[in-house]
């Protein structure tokens, strides 16, 4: 080390200075440490993700999915009521009976998606909204290719599509585990398409778990604390009862009891329609909340090693889509892992009988409107847009501000800059405050100041590439965006009209003393909502 040799083999008899040696050592140590640490993290990540069972159907189902209005992420949780292994083989009957309390036959339950929960993760943080779709909602079901399969319960789309495709898959030479995998992918695609159409919401990711997977995950996490508002019992009898036997208050559940907790639907007669299947959806919601709480308590979230251990268990039975990047998702969903989630169950028009089966009758348009409002989007009703939400003169009256159409969460898909100019002289309205409000919704804050013109109604104009963002901005003010060659590309210019007095749905401009905003508070839902952060992270349910 004392000598250095050039490429020509000449020896330079020059001793490096101590400072140089120290510098080399420090640089090498730092470089090596960064390299080694990066390698460890990379290896951990690969271990975490490589063994997951993934499904490639999401790319297809996204093609004709309803358009995203912003950068939010919708995740569909599918609970499959199948008593089979992933390769299609039957679970041991005694295990199904004694541990799963799900009858003694692997044929019970078929491939019904008895639990369907759509999680909406807003683009800019904020509360995650989750809706459970009652399994007996009678809807138009769609096949994996998007073709109509006919009216049926929403839970039946998976199994019906799988059955329908079975002969074709066999004809292609598929059998055994390959046949099962292909069939389930078709079932997943059908479920995604059916839910997308029913709710008019795009689905970005899926996570599917069956009874066995649920049991395994619960086993890895047990004991899991849940809370009930009443004592309850539901003896297991021939695949009908869940085996539930819980007391009022906090219960510590093992895996078998956890399954009973989320499957119980008999002897549940809560108030406000919170009965049977619907009460069960709240059990499932509370259970997810408790699991997240449990993971946080045990320090699993944020600990790659512990996460890896859990993933090892989940790799066997959990199916996620192949576009799901764990790190991207972790970045998108701090509120989800932080427990800032509110669950609701969709309501319905009434009970009915179709094809000899009891069903929930629903009007998709009504459901879609509720879901849009819950997710913070504008009312999709084709009502004529008012010229300006604040057009009604309300000079000095201390009445509540006029309510514009519900505000979307208008985060542009591309980074779009919004300039705001103010022609309004209403108290509290400034271009800077409005620009901040728009920035809070995900737009880049641009220029602000007084308007050069004095339009009566608010105007929204946009340059090239900013149409989508402009439409989102315009929806906020209940006006229509127009393109202008004078506006720079990727720019939207908002001119607040002289009649503009503020957007009622903005928290900062909400009059003092009003109730905190809860998008679900005024919406028709089945039973009470379940707030994951209530009761110390273990929400009490019926």
């Amino acid at each position: 080390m004392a000598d250095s040799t050039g490429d020509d083999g000449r020896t330079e008899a020059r001793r490096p200075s101590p400072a140089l040696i120290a510098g080399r050592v420090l640089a090498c140590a730092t470089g090596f440490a960064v390299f080694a640490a990066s390698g460890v993290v990379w290896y951990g990540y690969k271990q975490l993700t490589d063994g997951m069972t993934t499904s490639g159907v999401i790319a297809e189902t996204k093609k004709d999915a309803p358009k995203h209005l912003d950068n939010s992420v919708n995740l569909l949780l599918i609970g499959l009521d199948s008593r089979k292994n992933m390769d299609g083989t039957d679970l041991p009957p005694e295990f199904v009976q004694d541990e799963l309390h799900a009858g003694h036959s692997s044929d019970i339950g078929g491939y019904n998606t008895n639990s369907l929960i759509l999680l909406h993760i807003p683009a800019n943080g904020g509360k995650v909204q989750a809706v459970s779709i009652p399994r007996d909602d009678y809807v138009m079901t769609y096949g994996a290719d998007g073709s109509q399969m006919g009216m049926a319960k929403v839970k039946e789309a998976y199994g019906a599509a799988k059955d329908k495709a079975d002969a074709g898959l066999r004809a292609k030479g598929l059998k055994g585990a390959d046949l099962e995998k292909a069939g389930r992918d078709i079932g997943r695609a059908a479920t995604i398409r059916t839910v997308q159409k029913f709710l008019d919401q795009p689905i970005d990711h899926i996570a599917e778990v069956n009874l066995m997977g649920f049991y395994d995950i619960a086993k890895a996490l047990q004991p899991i604390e849940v809370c009930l508002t009443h004592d309850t019992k539901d003896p297991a009898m021939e695949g009908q009862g869940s085996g539930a036997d819980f007391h009022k208050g906090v219960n510590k559940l093992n895996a078998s009891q956890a399954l009973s907790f989320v499957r119980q639907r008999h002897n549940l007669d809560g108030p406000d329609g919170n009965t049977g299947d619907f009460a069960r959806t709240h059990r499932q919601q509370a259970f997810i909340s408790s699991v997240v709480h449990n993971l946080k308590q045990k320090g699993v979230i944020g600990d790659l090693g512990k996460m890896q251990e859990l993933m090892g268990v989940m790799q066997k039975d959990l199916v996620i889509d192949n576009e799901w990047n764990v790190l991207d998702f972790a970045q998108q969903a701090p509120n989800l892992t932080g427990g800032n989630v509110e669950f609701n169950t969709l309501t319905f028009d009434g009970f009915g009988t179709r094809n000899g089966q009891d069903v929930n009758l629903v009007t998709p348009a009504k459901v879609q409107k509720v879901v849009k409002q819950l997710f913070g989007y504008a009312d999709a009703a084709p009502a004529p847009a008012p010229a300006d939400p604040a057009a009604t003169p309300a000079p000095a009256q201390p009445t509540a501000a006029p309510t514009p159409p519900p505000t979307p969460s208008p985060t542009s898909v591309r980074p779009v800059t919004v300039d705001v100019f103010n022609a309004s002289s209403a108290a509290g309205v400034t271009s800077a405050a409005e620009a901040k409000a728009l920035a809070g919704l995900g737009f880049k804050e641009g220029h602000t100041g007084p308007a050069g013109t004095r339009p009566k109604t608010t105007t929204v104009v946009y340059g090239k590439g900013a149409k989508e963002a402009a439409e989102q901005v315009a929806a906020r003010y209940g006006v229509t965006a127009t393109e202008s060659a004078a506006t720079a590309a990727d720019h939207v210019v908002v001119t607040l009209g002289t009649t503009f007095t503020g957007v009622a749905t903005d928290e900062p401009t909400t009059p003092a003393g009003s109730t905190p905003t809860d998008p679900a508070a005024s919406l028709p839902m089945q039973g009470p909502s379940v707030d994951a952060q209530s009761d110390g992270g273990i929400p009490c349910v019926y």
Partner: protein
Amino acid sequence: MGLAFAVAAVLGTGLAAALSSRNGWWWVLAASPLVVLGVTAAVELAAHRDRYQGKGLATGAAKWVVHGFPVMAEAAAAAVIVIAVRLVRARRRQHG
């Protein structure tokens, strides 16, 4: 970043190893991972500052490392290969 960044990192590190003196090889090998990670972090922070607030920074840093490591490894491998070739050629000249 992606493929273009990886190619540039590999070519840059290889070129640096080819042009530097023996003393410089230390610096090339040591600096390569730091430069890859530093450039990744700087570009991401400049492009998406809003994403990396609070907890987002920790998740983001994990992402940079996971995506950056293969590039670091490829760049380091390129430098090692170039250095090995130079050593072999130098030895041959000495003995030839």
